């Protein structure tokens, strides 16, 4: 129901096609689907380019796993997510 409303708000079509999907797995990992590239990466922060904004994952001992041109998994001690 909620998803249907969002699809209406965004003008219909597939949500996944238009918007990235961010899945936060506790404080251990963040799965990012539909990014458009890694902008910055260090052991404290990882920045990904999304469609209309930037996603910043902060934490400690960060590591990017299973990185492809559209998907990534950031693992480590996640402390925050922010959009800019």
């Amino acid at each position, binding site marked *: 129901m909620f998803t249907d409303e969002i699809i209406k708000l965004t003008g219909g079509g597939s949500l996944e096609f238009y918007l990235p999907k961010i899945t936060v797995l506790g404080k251990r990992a963040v799965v990012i689907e539909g990014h458009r*590239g890694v902008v910055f*990466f260090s052991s404290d922060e990882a920045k990904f380019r999304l469609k209309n904004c930037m996603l910043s994952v902060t934490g400690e001992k960060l*590591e990017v*796993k299973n990185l492809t041109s559209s998907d990534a998994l950031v693992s480590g001690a996640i402390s925050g997510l922010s959009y800019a």
Partner: protein
Amino acid sequence: MLKHVDCFTVESSASTKIASAVTKSGVKILSLKKEGKNTVIHTNFKHRPVIIALLNQLCYNYKLVSYGFMKSVKDFAARKGLAAGLLAAMLFFMLTPLYTLRIEVKGDYPKDEVLSALESLGISAGGRAKVDCSLLEESLLKLDGVASASVEKKGTTLIVNILSELPEQDVYIYGGTGPLVATADAVVSRQIVYSGTALHKKGQTIRAGESVIADYVLVGEEKVPATARGEVYGLVYYTATAWFTPEVIELRESGNTFKVTSTEFLGAASAKKDAPYENYYTESRTYVTGILLPVRVTETTYYELVETRVTYTFEECEKQLKASALEAASAKLPLAASLKNKWITVKPAGNGFVVEATVEAEIRIDGRL
């Protein structure tokens, strides 16, 4: 778990640039991390040429370390719990066959004696000792009253099969009673030999008095004396015959009768009269007359019989002849005989026929002289 991974340590902190270049070339980065001023990426070894070409193109210095089986082993070893579990399982399976955790005693020999015998040989439940099954068997066979013993080790269980000797009274000692002989002429139908040797096979014809079970058993070529014991059954045949002739002479009544009356009074009888006919049959009636002085009166009627020639057809007599022949043959059967079969044959003989009935029966034919 056993994947082949390449680890590129690139001397650059521009991890983003490297990651973007690699992912744009369609290669999946298994791991990306920064170690000081270096960027470390792990990729599948099959993408090695692509990564090397890319890094050369970007003019980065890099170091390649390839991890194969040993990396997988190390990864596995890093999972301490799993490794410890596997090691423990391996040790368990290596060591447990050395232990005997359970002893299973089968058979009628006292279990306590078996266990104490095993204990004296260093084998006990829960103990650790090398089990030599053949040696144990030999030792168990030396126990008093043991007829047979076998020992088998299955995992941690020692299985002992041990049987006692039969009691003395169950052992039949040869008494030299001679062979069993046939009590009648017969065709052997079945035989059960308890001891001794059967001398005939099924279907063989034997005569009364012939030996049927010999008082020995063959061990190789040698004849070992044994009491002849067993049961021998044979088929015996009994026949009975009836003859049919078309003309027979029968005695039939001629219709002539002659009545004679005699009296008897106080012990005195009147004189008897001879029969008036050559062939006859009589009917007698006796009564008493007089009240004070009784007189016994006997009336005898003679009916004359004459020889008459009578003609029959075989069809008229066939049923009766067959029945009487069969009845006569069956009457010869011993009481214990088991009737197996019966048949009737009709053969012409002279101007008549011979009807022969045969019955086949099974009887026990073994006996002693």
